[in-house]
């Protein structure tokens, strides 16, 4: 059983939901990212998503694009993120998931990526531009290295396809809350409740909801219909403002705690 499976199992027993924060690795620098991971864990995160910067992040809105550019400016690459994970892993057992576009993985080599990631202590991958149809070889290599491969479904994914995607995902199923890109949004998208209920009907795997979730009140509405929430842009925005300021972590802490407290 993977670390991710284990955490969802434990949370389910305790009738709790997972808090999954996303930060871009290397923004503002790798040392801060390392510190942030431990801070996020202290504040109640259950799984952490680390974004690998890419020059052309076409599923991301302006906030994560900008973070990605800043990290690239620091010379951050997939290789460096893997080494960072290795360091972080010395100090924590929290599940770490890499969110990366496919090209850096393809370029490093699928096998090499899977092997090095497993050795470093990565638990899984989310690759938004690698749908299950294109991921045959990657899934095999990931499985051989005990890595979870997390696929996404979107509100316009038909029921039959959602069933197919859910059958291929491992760790959890990532439910994109809107037809759109990442970024903070107000309120709950129309139809989200119905869509999440529909997803519940197609899989028994854990369901985590992401894209646009930035406030405790959104979390309170969404949490009962899912097994976890992913908070990205809102947090990345705070990191951009306070990440390298003295005492800046206090702002980040209070935000993450407010989200954690909104969760059952």
């Amino acid at each position: 059983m993977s670390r991710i499976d284990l955490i969802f199992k434990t949370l389910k027993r305790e009738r709790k939901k997972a808090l999954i924060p996303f930060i871009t690795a290397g923004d503002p620098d790798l040392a801060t990212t390392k510190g942030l991971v431990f801070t996020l864990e202290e504040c109640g995160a259950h799984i952490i998503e680390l974004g690998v910067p890419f020059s052309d992040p076409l599923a991301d809105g302006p906030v994560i694009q900008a973070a990605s550019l800043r990290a690239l400016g620091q010379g951050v690459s997939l290789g460096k993120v893997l080494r960072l994970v290795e360091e972080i892993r010395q100090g924590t057992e929290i599940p770490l998931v890499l969110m990366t576009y496919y090209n850096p993985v393809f370029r490093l080599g699928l096998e090499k990526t899977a092997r090095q990631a497993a050795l470093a202590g990565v638990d899984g991958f989310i690759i938004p531009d690698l749908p299950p149809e294109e991921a045959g070889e990657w899934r095999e290599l990931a499985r051989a290295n005990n890595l979870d491969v997390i696929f996404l479904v979107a509100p316009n994914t038909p029921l039959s396809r959602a069933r197919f995607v859910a059958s291929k995902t491992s760790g959890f199923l990532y439910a994109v809350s809107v037809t759109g890109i990442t970024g903070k949004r107000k309120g709950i998208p129309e139809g989200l409740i119905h869509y999440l209920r529909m997803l519940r009907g197609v899989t028994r795997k854990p369901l985590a909801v992401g894209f646009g979730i930035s406030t405790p009140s959104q979390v309170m509405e969404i949490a009962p219909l899912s097994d976890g929430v992913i908070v990205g842009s809102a947090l990345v925005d705070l990191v951009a403002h306070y990440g390298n300021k003295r005492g800046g972590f206090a702002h980040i802490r209070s935000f993450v705690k407010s989200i954690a407290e909104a969760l059952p």
Partner: protein
Amino acid sequence: MPDKKGYFGPYGGKFVPETLITPLKELREAFRGAMRDRHFRAELNYYLKVYAGRPTPLYLAENLSKTLGGARIYLKREDLAHTGAHKINNTLGQVLLGKRMGKSRIIAETGAGQHGVATATAAALFNLKCHIYMGEVDVRRQAMNVYRMQLLGAEVIPVKQGSCTLKDAINEAIRDWVTHVKDTFYVIGSVVGPNPYPMMVREFQSVIGREARQQLKRTEGRLPDIIVACVGGGSNALGIFYPFRRDPVRLIGVEAAGLGLDTERHSATLSKGSPGILHGALSYLLQTEDGQIMEAHSLAPGLDYPGVGPEHAFFKDSGMASYVSVTDDEALEGFRILSETEGIIPALESAHAIAYTSRLAPETTDDQIILINLSGRGDKDVAIVAEREKGGKDS
């Protein structure tokens, strides 16, 4: 080609966020349905004929042939198509398809502005709302085309992300499409992007090769020996190559070597790049060791792209076509020679094909035939060339 999953050999595919998977499937089905529908084809052919001015002439460039020595050189005059380039073939097809699918809004990316102008033109013709994404750097470099698009009723949205050029405009257009996919049709300008775009754009552009084939058979009674076309994303090249792909004809794609292949300032993706994933397809790319996409460079704005259509990657690997490159300086020489010998000012993109032909022709004999795809006219580039002559500065 492509196969069911949209692959040309190992290249192509559909590397896109989940939100686009279903719309791409619908697009593929709509395209197939349209191409099987006699009425759709008739409507498209009607507009290609009376609106875009097809068939474009096939012109025997006697002066150029004599000056270079060797083969008889024919020019396929896409520069005479409406809006001044081959781009209109594709945008009429895609916008008609968008209309058939009931979409109310058209979006497109543009680098130099040629595809943007051709899309805005088709959107005006069919009365659809039109938004064009264009890198901020290009908006500045191509002010005239920005104004043309606005005259045509399109809204030009400057893209301030990344390198602020064509690849970023495509990223932003894809982000728009992901967000407004229900009512929006994305008109891609070249044989790039996720399946079915590379196939669809090739189909709409193949009219170039089909006409040229017929025209040559009529005038010369035979096929050409060599076909030369410039390659950025590769739509004009594939458009002329494709109908000849099974013939004993040498197909040569000319990439932009910019300041030289030994510098980092070029767009020679097939000559110097390596396989990777950009804009939804696996193909050759200009990328760093870490898999970050590099900026491309060419004096010709339409060749300035760090990727290339996946079918070209397949043509290269399988030897169906060969790919060469010429520098900015050589392209300028091609620009001049065609202007002076034939009174035809070519687009800087097409000037790359002329430039390579200047190198190639002396090695051929006068019983041979070279066919060049003259993909666009050069009015849009006169300012770039003039500035270059004045300052000798790289744009």
